[in-house]
């Protein structure tokens, strides 16, 4: 190869590279970007995204996130774009406050009529102008019937402080959920911003630390199924895996503490920056269609806010007061967006606790 050829080859290579960059970076006009939690959409029973593309011809770019905070941070800096996003309640409130979400045109979402009003109208979006409930659940306690005395469960969250179960107790591995339990135990609001109450809750957590086997998130499943631990706070929808006869351990039960429990509802929303709002609403409407919502509810196992899904689901699940508790009869509280100082305070105490 002579010099001239080499130079042309180099230039061609560079040109290809340059074409590659914007080519991959710009999204197709016909593509919706959807952000959801990992493992939170059916891809086995009817494969929701594939079904949507097959019916409408609209491609879905499906991306997943691990926490409300990380996706919020990146969206607010502007490093990610999305058309549809499914964050939790308090994050919906925060994103509405910062103008990141668009008001929905409900004439494009006729299937919204199926959504049970129990799960709409919460403080973070009182008129549901911005958000459509997708899945909901509450926190509670998983316990192993073989080792845990059911009488002790009547103490509610206090059982996680019971010396009898020392080193067989698991705790949430994030400050917000862990503090919520301590605050509920003390009878405070799980959204408290009172520094004294937070300090008292932190003292409870520090007191509990010697009894805790580990601070975990998804390891709860294996540890409870294999009886490595006997008590763990987690979400009621996870009974579908943990208490399952085949995949899980039928000796594990779930109980709803008598004190306040955290109610969460993850909602589908549309970005205020989206230029495909109609398509995004079409997708949300699709998620609210009975067959799609049923597939998602069966795959994920969390509570569906969809009234028809309740009837279509296996009645053993939909009539189970643990899977579908009557939240009006319980003392439930949803998370609010905490002020920055409170979050900082929680982080400081949390770091001290984990040292």
């Amino acid at each position, binding site marked *: 190869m002579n010099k001239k050829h080499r130079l042309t080859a180099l230039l061609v290579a560079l040109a290809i590279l340059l074409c590659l960059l914007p080519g*991959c970076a*710009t999204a197709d006009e016909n593509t919706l*970007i959807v952000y959801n939690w*990992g493992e939170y959409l059916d*891809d086995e029973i009817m494969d929701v995204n594939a079904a949507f593309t097959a019916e409408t011809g609209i491609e879905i*770019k499906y991306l997943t996130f691990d926490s409300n905070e990380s996706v919020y941070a*990146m969206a607010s800096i502007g490093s990610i774009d999305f058309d549809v996003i499914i964050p939790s309640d308090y994050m919906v409130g925060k994103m509405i406050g910062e103008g990141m979400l668009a008001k929905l045109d409900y004439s494009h979402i006729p299937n919204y009529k199926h959504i049970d009003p129990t799960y709409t109208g919460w403080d973070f979006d009182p008129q549901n102008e911005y958000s459509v409930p997708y899945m909901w659940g509450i926190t509670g306690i998983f316990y192993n019937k073989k080792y845990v005395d059911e009488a002790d469960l009547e103490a509610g969250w206090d059982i996680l402080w019971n010396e009898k179960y020392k080193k067989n107790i698991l705790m949430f591995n994030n400050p917000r959920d862990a503090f919520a339990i301590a605050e509920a135990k003390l009878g405070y609001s799980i959204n408290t911003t009172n520094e004294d109450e937070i300090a008292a809750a932190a003292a409870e957590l520090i007191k509990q630390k010697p009894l805790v086997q580990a601070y975990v998130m998804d390891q709860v499943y294996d540890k409870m199924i294999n009886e490595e631990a006997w008590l763990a706070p987690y979400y009621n929808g996870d009974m579908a895996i943990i208490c399952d006869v*085949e995949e899980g351990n039928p000796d594990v039960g779930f109980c709803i503490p008598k004190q306040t429990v955290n109610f969460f509802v993850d909602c589908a929303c549309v970005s205020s920056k989206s230029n495909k709002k109609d398509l995004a609403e079409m997708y949300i409407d699709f998620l609210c269609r009975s067959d799609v919502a049923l597939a998602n509810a069966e795959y994920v196992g969390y509570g569906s806010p969809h009234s028809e899904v309740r009837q279509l689901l296996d009645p053993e699940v939909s009539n189970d007061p643990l899977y579908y508790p009557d939240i009006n009869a319980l003392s439930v509280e949803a998370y609010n967006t905490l002020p920055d100082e409170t979050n900082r305070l929680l982080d400081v105490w949390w770091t001290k606790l984990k040292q």
Partner: protein
Amino acid sequence: MKALSRIYNTLIFLFLYAPIAVLILFSFNDSKSRVVWNGFSLKWYEQLFGNELIMESLKVTLLVAVLSALIATVIGTMAAVGIHGMNRKLKKVFLTVNNIPVNNPEIVTGVSLMLLFVGAISFMNHTFGTHFKMGFGTLLIAHITFNIPYVILQVMPKLRQMDEHLYEAALDLGCHPVSAFFKVILPEISSGVFTGLLMAFTLSLDDFVISLCTAGSGAQTLSVTIYSMIRRRVTPEVNAVSTLLFGSVLILLILVNVMQIYSENKLKKEQRRAGVR
């Protein structure tokens, strides 16, 4: 004493490889459990190939790893040759500068690249009316960026070991500098270039923090996908895909070693033949 050192060696290897062995074993498990063995099955591999999200992220991960490793190797080797040719003072300055990104916490690199991309893209979109977005392109640039210093670190020692006069001799014999580089220098430093390439490839496969910060909404690497499963359950499909990745890297390494041994033998044979003559 010998027995003791053998036990020590076994322990070290056990610590290094036991987790991988367990991971591979449970990718063939018949149930979702990651602790209890329920019999052999390939169902996680079947599900894996049907899982579009994981397959798509695997594709992105491999493509970024291959492209970023190749490009970083080219740039890094050129840079190493350039730095090698500098005077001592300048060389020291450049090598120190090169070491900063290596020692820098990943999160700093990730966030600063993200802010740079966000700024640069919004500037370009405003002034030139382009429609750039963060995505595969920015992810690739980020990976090339953090790979380059490692390539330089691998190539520099080989350049130092090389006999300077070989290159000069080639020039004296009428070789053009460019072809002297390809015919004399490159073969001498090729093992360093190759280790640099492999290292860049594995570092890119491995990366989580920088990918999370720079991929935008255009692409998602495997590590980010796996991490997003953390609230729910990480399924054994993840074991299956990790096994496949581990297997392919292992095969790659074996191939490289076999090739190296083969070419060394060939070289020795040629030298022997030349000596006989």
